[in-house]
């Protein structure tokens, strides 16, 4: 056996050269979980000193109510409600004293579920279904703007608030791997163990309680 060490070393370096650009080092940040004050439902949040992404559970019943009120039929609203919807608040929390520009593309994010790697169901994918189903125009418009933008560029203090959809059934758990660019530099972060809201009805609140 005779190895051409130069050739082998060269191949290793070429391999590293190909692999390195694909590797995105995780950004320093922390994951916070708890109960969202406004929604009174569980949330998962990734944040550092420039960016925060908070996913707040939406009960399927809330989603049904929202979309039927905007012109979707019961069965269409049911399809959305069963798709694991989160209220998502994506913020650039950089300050003028420490600025940073954030750009993201949801089609690059990964949903890890039971060993599978999946994609988020972004508004454009839903839109195709609504067009095929001839959903009334006002309902389609409300749906389009109710979901968080698929691509966005945030300067300091900019933010969006909208729904994200994970194409999983209520009650399932998944991990989310996110990528974004901060001042043009690709970064990544992950939130583990996110739970789609279970399909339960809200107990009516006692106004005197």
């Amino acid at each position, binding site marked *: 056996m005779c190895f051409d060490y130069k050739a082998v070393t060269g191949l290793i370096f070429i391999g590293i050269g190909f692999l390195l650009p694909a590797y995105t080092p995780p950004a320093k940040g922390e994951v916070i979980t708890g109960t969202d004050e406004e929604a009174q439902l569980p949330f998962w949040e990734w944040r550092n000193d420039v960016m925060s992404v908070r996913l707040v559970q939406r009960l399927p019943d809330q989603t049904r109510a929202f979309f039927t009120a905007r012109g979707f039929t019961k069965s269409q609203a049911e399809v959305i409600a069963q798709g694991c919807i989160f209220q998502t608040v994506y913020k650039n929390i950089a300050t003028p004293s420490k600025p940073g520009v954030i750009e993201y593309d949801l089609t690059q994010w990964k949903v890890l579920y039971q060993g599978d790697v999946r994609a988020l169901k972004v508004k454009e994918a839903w839109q195709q279904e609504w067009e095929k189903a001839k959903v009334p125009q006002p309902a389609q418009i409300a749906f389009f703007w109710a979901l968080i933008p698929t691509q966005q560029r945030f300067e300091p*203090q900019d933010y969006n608030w*909208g729904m994200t959809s994970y194409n999983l059934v209520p009650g399932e758990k998944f991990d989310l791997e996110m990528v974004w660019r901060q001042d043009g530099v690709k970064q990544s972060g992950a939130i583990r163990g996110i739970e789609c809201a279970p399909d339960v009805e809200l107990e009516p609140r006692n106004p005197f309680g």
Partner: protein
Amino acid sequence: MRNYSRFVVFPITFVMTFFITLMFATVVYAEKSQPLHPVTGTPMAPDFSLNDIDGKPHALQDYRGMVVIINFWATWCPPCRYELPSMERAYQRLKKQGIEMLAINVGEDADTIFTFTVDYPVTFPLLMDLDSKVIKDYPVVGLPTTYVVDSKGRLVYRAIGTREWDDAALMQKILDLKK
């Protein structure tokens, strides 16, 4: 030695305290600022003609020569609702300076918007982009998004998400466009 403390240490302490307080106040002010971001290339604002909820038509062309704030919103959008009161407070001050504010609702009808204004009363025109054609002409991908148009009809500033529109520094930035 005692006299030395009295006449030197006290003034030095006072001056240092003053500057530390000033630095702290500057940082706090900077962190709480309400930024408007410049629009690259300042393109011309796409023209439109939309009816308000009373059926009165408003064309952007009619406001040429004026600074105009254009806000895209919807009644079901929580951050849109959040910023409406501060927009109204700002409008009350800015309209006296000849600055106009137009809030373009995306996809909802007059009845829905009118009912909404019972809880969120505003005096600036609420225009209806029923088929969302106008918002698609603008570089907007999420609600709320607000543009400031200068007197030459150019998009000069942008804000994505809510702002406290009656913030003094933010309003001054808009007023400066009149100069």
